C-alpha cells in the first residue's frame, strides 16, 4: 500500500471524526441529518480508495448502494421533519 493511499485514508478518517463531532453536538435534527449525509459521502470515498488499494473492483457496487441509501435516508428524514415528528432540539 503506497504512502499516498495511507495518507488519504488517514485524512478521510479524520474527516469522519469531525463529522461525528457535528453529529454529536448538532443543535437540531437537520444539522445531524447533514452530518449523516457527509458520513455517507466520505464512506463512498473510503470504499473507492480501498477498492484501489486491494484491487477488488466489485467493491464499487458497495459504493453505489451506499450512495443510494444515503439519498433515501435524507429524503426520509426530510419528510419526517416536514410532517412534524418528535424532535430533541
Amino acid at each position, binding site marked *: 500500500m*503506497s504512502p*499516498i*493511499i495511507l*495518507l*488519504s*485514508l488517514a*485524512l*478521510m478518517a*479524520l*474527516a*469522519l*471524526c*469531525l*463529522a461525528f*463531532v*457535528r453529529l454529536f453536538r448538532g*443543535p*437540531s*435534527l*437537520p*444539522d445531524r*441529518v*447533514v*452530518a449523516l*449525509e*457527509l458520513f455517507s*459521502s*466520505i464512506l*463512498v*470515498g473510503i470504499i*473507492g*480508495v480501498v*477498492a*484501489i488499494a486491494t484491487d477488488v*473492483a466489485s467493491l*464499487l*457496487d458497495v*459504493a*453505489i448502494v451506499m*450512495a*443510494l441509501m*444515503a*439519498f433515501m435516508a*435524507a*429524503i426520509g*428524514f*426530510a*419528510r419526517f*421533519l*416536514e410532517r*412534524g415528528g418528535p*424532535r430533541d432540539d
Partner: protein
Amino acid sequence: MTELLTELLILVGAVFMLLAALGVVRLPDLLTRMHATTKAATLGATLIMLAVALHFAQVAVVARALGVILFILMTAPVAAHVIGRAGYFVGSRLWEGTLKDELKPNYDPLTHELKSGREDQGKPRPDESDAP
C-alpha cells in the same frame, strides 16, 4: 504516469472531504453547513471515483464509476434542497450575522404557504373591464 495521476486524484479528493468535514464543524448555521458538505464532499467523491476509473481501466469498472459520479451529481442537490427546506420549516435558527432572509416576509410558517407579492397582477381591474 497513470499511477501518479491516480494518487494525485485520491489525495485531492481526500483533502476536499477533510475540508467539507471542517466546514461542517466550524460554520455557524444549517444552511452554511450544507453549503460546505454538498459541494466539497460531492467533489471529493467524484475525484476519488475518477481515480478508481483510471486505476482499473476496464469498461465495466469505468462504467460503474461514472455511474456513481452521475448518481451523486444528481442526488446531492436534491437531498440538500429537501433538507434545507425541512430545516426552514421546522424553524432552525439562522446565523445572527445573516443580512437578508427574503423568504421571511412572504412565508407563512403555519400554513407553509408562500406569497409571490404579485397576487393582484392577473386579475382584471374593474374600471378596465367595461371599456369599449
